[in-house]
């Protein structure tokens, strides 16, 4: 039963992204055309609050529910990995209108064609795993 809280959290996330239209292909297209504040408002609010939350966690040395300190792993800095990888993801994001979370939320919305994008996404991750040692990181 310790896992049930994650299902509830996922339900809240799925409802929110549907209700705020974040899962809509139209909203992603509009964002990349800079024709509305909506998506910038969603991500901007989350980041501003996220910065405050993260600072509070670090300054108060907040502990997780288990009693262990909350650790936010630092990502090892490099340019090529994040720039090239990010741009490849951006190409796909603007085409499908969905990043990984919304792909699954769309499935719940009855948009079944997205299953093909999910399967292709799994294959993309698999191919990355296979050729990762040949790529600049």
């Amino acid at each position, binding site marked *: 039963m310790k896992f049930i809280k994650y299902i509830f959290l996922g339900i*809240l*996330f799925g409802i929110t992204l549907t209700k705020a239209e974040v899962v809509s292909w139209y909203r992603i297209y509009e964002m*990349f055309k800079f024709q509305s504040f909506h*998506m910038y408002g969603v*991500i901007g609010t989350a980041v501003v609050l996220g910065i405050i939350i993260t600072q509070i966690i670090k300054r108060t040395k907040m502990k997780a529910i288990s009693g262990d300190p909350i650790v936010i792993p630092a990502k090892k800095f490099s340019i090529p990995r*994040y*720039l090239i990888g990010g741009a490849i993801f*951006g190409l796909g994001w603007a085409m499908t209108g969905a990043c990984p979370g919304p792909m699954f939320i769309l499935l719940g919305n009855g948009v079944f064609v997205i299953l093909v994008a999910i399967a292709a996404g*799994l294959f993309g991750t698999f191919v990355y795993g296979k050729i990762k040692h040949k790529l600049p990181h």
Partner: protein
Amino acid sequence: MNSIIEFIQQPWPWYVAGTIIALVMFTLLYFGNSFGLSANFRNMCSMFGGGRSCEFFDFDWRKQTWNLLFLAGTVVGGFIAHQWLMPDATIAISDATIADLKELGIANPGVGIAPEEVFSFETLFSLKGIIIFVVGGFLVGFGTRYAGGCTSGHAISGLSDLQPASLVAVIGFFIGGLIMTYLLLPHILTM
């Protein structure tokens, strides 16, 4: 009570969504985990036996059960919102966006959650559909793992922690997204 139901049934404003997303991130950290949806593609590759032929998927995916269940919850959340909380499925996109999309052959921009000219099984079995869903999905799966995260992992969690790597990743997201939206998508949509 009626006003609460009325509020829930309206499209939710950006500040409500942004606040809930930040709280979801915090709750996952408080539970001792982290907020990153694309990791589930890797988890699923491992779950389906990818570890037998590839070291990258050779880990104990059961330790990621919480993330897979979170993902399963999002599907249920999408279902609940779609069934009971969306009295009308019109997306209030800007007039400029509507005009641009009409020019690209989308007949009713903003009607439904996604354009029916793209999101149909008829399109799926055409070159346009294969490019958008098969190539598009592949790029999302490949790119997120290469970049080590997607919108939740980098744009929300990483930027919240002021990590330089995440800023580079988000710049990358926009380079790819803008190239697609301005240079490639007009050709793909009018195929």
